[in-house]
């Protein structure tokens, strides 16, 4: 968005990175930008841990016999893969790194409303991480990331408690981040920055924050109850003691289905920024894209029962959850069509962030459409808990959320570090990722319909060909993740210095130097226009 500044920005030599040095200046920082980098380091570590377990899983599944690992080991591997990737990577990835860095800057604020709480939420995240890592080292946990009772509460004799405590603690970090964003977006917008002048990235984070503060406490209490049941042998979920194991599933999915939207909505916000910037056009249908984020957040709370179509819940409940799930298709379709329409008559430049954005749109489309199968009562009876589900949610989480995260990381990398990354390598890795991803996860749709159940350590021989394809794809995918890790780290030192606005983007964050000074804005900016104004020519009517 174009802004009227009371004075041109002064190029300062000091920025948030070089203002102070030493480990203490980082660990005690209250600067949202430094906290974002603390998160970046932490989630990259947890992503690597989660990735390591993914490698183990794919290696085991190359052969039908469970010959590489003991079943116990395999069960722990897929549990740790899920726990690490979902709770410690996907949920915080975009909000805690890009959101933390950008939300204040995009609305013209000097920091988030509560900088100390922001730092606190990073520490809470780390404490949660330490507990979970302890659980991993002390023998691991084998309940699956879903912790279904009564297996988790009574039968599993692995480190359920330590993991549960870790995830419980981690939840507060997520709640506090959401709280901080909501207050910041409500109260700290620059003069003139009305709600409908907000960048879509902000709308997406607002919707995400609402889910975080409303959903996370419910899963927290469910985990507390599992912990109490395990510790004191009291019967809340164990039917032997009069409890109801299905109630846990209700409480769990009441959070964990909206949690899917915690993972995907921020990435959708990123995509709106990328598509507009690299086609130099206003977003097509701003209001619809903004409101569809809110609609997804609201609907997300009403569909949890579609995880339980075969759990024995009433067929009528299943019917209601099925139709509500189908309604989510509408805001999702609105987003995809509007992004595509934004490209129409644009000036499209194929730079790395846009490649990720286009990859996102394509993969999210497939992920979303395969959701139609799983929301369908008759088909889901067959597909529930098979590899079709695994394929579907990886298309959303990896093809969607991670593509968006990487696209955003590349887009704002010059702003974050003040350096440019090597464009050629970056484009190559985006391509490798796209190919590797599809090869890994597309065969899983077929495997699922053929009937291969998920979480199987050994499987019948007729499923081998597709599993080998998937494992081969995973090795390509791994290369696609390692390349950016190398060149991004390399560029921090050797990359070409980045100008304030390397992409010619609108948006307040591009009006200040790269990297930004600690207080972001010398003077509070005044916003006079809508976002994404690349041209002052009169808008065309279609």
């Amino acid at each position, binding site marked *: 968005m174009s802004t009227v500044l009371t004075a041109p920005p002064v190029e300062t030599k000091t920025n948030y990175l070089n203002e102070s040095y030493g480990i203490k200046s980082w660990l005690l920082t209250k600067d949202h930008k430094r906290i974002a980098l603390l998160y970046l380091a932490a989630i990259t570590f947890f992503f690597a841990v989660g990735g390591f377990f993914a490698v183990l899983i794919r290696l085991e599944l190359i052969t039908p016999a469970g010959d590489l690992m003991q*079943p116990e080991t395999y*069960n722990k591997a897929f549990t740790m893969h899920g726990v690490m990737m979902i709770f410690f990577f996907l949920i915080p990835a975009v909000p805690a790194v890009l959101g933390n860095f950008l939300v204040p800057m995009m609305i013209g604020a000097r920091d988030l409303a509560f900088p100390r709480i922001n730092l606190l939420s990073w520490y809470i995240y780390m404490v949660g991480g330490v507990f979970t890592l302890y659980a991993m080292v002390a023998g691991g946990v*084998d309940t*699956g990331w879903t912790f*279904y009772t*009564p*297996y988790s509460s009574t*039968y599993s004799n692995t480190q359920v408690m330590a993991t549960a405590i870790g995830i419980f603690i981690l939840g507060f970090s997520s709640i506090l981040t959401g709280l901080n964003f909501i207050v910041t977006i409500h109260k700290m917008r620059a003069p003139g920055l009305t709600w409908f002048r907000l960048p879509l990235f902000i709308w997406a984070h607002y919707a995400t924050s609402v889910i975080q503060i409303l959903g996370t406490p419910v899963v927290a209490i469910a985990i507390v109850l599992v912990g109490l049941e395990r510790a004191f042998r009291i019967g809340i979920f164990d*039917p*032997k003691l009069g409890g*109801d*194991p299905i109630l846990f599933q209700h409480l769990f999915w009441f959070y964990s289905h909206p949690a899917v939207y915690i993972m995907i909505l921020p990435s959708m916000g990123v995509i709106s920024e990328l598509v507009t910037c690299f086609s*130099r*056009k*206003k977003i*097509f249908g701003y209001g*619809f894209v903004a409101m569809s984020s809110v609609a997804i957040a609201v609907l997300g709370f009403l569909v949890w029962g579609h995880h339980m179509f*075969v*759990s024995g819940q009433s*067929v009528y409940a*299943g019917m209601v959850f*099925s*139709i509500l799930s*189908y*309604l989510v298709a*509408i805001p999702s379709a609105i987003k995809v*069509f509007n992004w595509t*329409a934004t*490209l*129409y*008559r*644009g*000036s*499209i*430049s*194929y730079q790395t962030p846009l490649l990720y954005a286009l990859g996102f749109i*394509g993969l999210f*489309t*497939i992920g979303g*459409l395969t959701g*139609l199968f799983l929301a*369908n009562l*008759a*088909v889901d*009876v*067959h597909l*529930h*808990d098979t590899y079709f589900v695994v394929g579907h949610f990886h298309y959303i989480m990896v093809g969607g959320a991670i593509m968006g995260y990487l696209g955003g990381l590349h887009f704002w990398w010059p702003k974050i570090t003040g350096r440019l990354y090597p464009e050629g390598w970056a484009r190559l890795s985006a391509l490798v990722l796209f190919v590797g991803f599809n090869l890994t996860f597309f065969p899983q749709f077929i495997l699922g*319909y*053929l*009937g291969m159940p*998920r979480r*199987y350590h*050994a499987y*019948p021989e007729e499923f081998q060909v597709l599993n080998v394809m998937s494992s081969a794809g995973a090795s390509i995918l791994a290369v696609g993740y390692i390349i950016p890790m190398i060149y991004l780290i390399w560029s921090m030192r050797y990359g070409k210095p980045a100008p304030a606005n390397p992409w010619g983007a609108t948006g307040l964050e591009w009006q200040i130097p790269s990297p930004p000074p600690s207080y972001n804005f010398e003077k509070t900016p005044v916003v006079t226009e809508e976002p994404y104004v690349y*041209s002052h*020519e009169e808008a*065309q*009517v*279609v």
Partner: protein
Amino acid sequence: MTDFPLLPEQASTIAQSVDTLYWVLVAISVFFTVLIFALIFVFAIRYRRRRPDEIPRPILGSLRLELFWSITPGIIAIAVFAYGTVVYFRNSAPPADAMEMFVVGKQWMWKIQHPEGHREINELHVPVGRPVKLVMTTEDVIHSFYIPAFRVKMDVVPGRYTTMWFQPTKVGKYHLFCAEYCGTEHSRMKGWVYVMEPVDYENWLSGKATTETMAAAGERLFQKLGCQSCHRADAPGRGPVLAGVFGSTVVLATGEKVVADESYLRESILRPQAKIVAGYRTLMPTFEGQLTEEQLLQLIAYIKSLGTRERIDTGP
């Protein structure tokens, strides 16, 4: 089937309808995927940046288009929902003449018992062409009974009964999986379903050592536990008459009415004080922890064998 099948075998009456629905969904998905990919591809080529300073004319949006692409997917979604729900409901209730089998899940095996009393582990023999209803429970954690070739799956939940049914259409040997993660040997909790010609099935039944039927075993247990001293066969004793109780509507002391299904009988045996029939006192001892899941199923089979009819139990 080719060497590279895309579908599991269709071996039940519902497989065909589920597969048709599946292909409809595949067609919709392919259509929209191709549409989006093609649009992106065409736009990306056609509107590529030709000059570095090129600024396209802005387009605000279009209410007509927005409505078009909200309503169209909306209609498609509702239509697919309706289609799926119809298929699901058409197949949700088992036919009245279904033969009943009993399944007990246990880490990590499936224990199956035929009404005639035959027991199987990780194997299920059924005759082709006859509807089969499974009454299922588990001794420990949640499992899920899954036969891909029949397109059926149902979770098996401790402390309650779930049911599913199917009617095999094709003789053969099909996979049986546990689909809900249940612990260490989850991936070995699988077996085979053998669909046989009715004659072969009869031979198979008679070829096995004859054991007493489930109802007979239940009757023996009924007597051993001394149930008949209160639940007398002829006239109401200290407990209600059980003949014909299954499937009937029972009036409780609280005035509530419940249908006496498997879950009700189970609860009344394990925790008799939970739902007291109107006119009776809380005398029956609890059998919680004293009966195995299989014994419970035998007792229920016995009570069922006493007849099922519609009636209102009004007490003594």
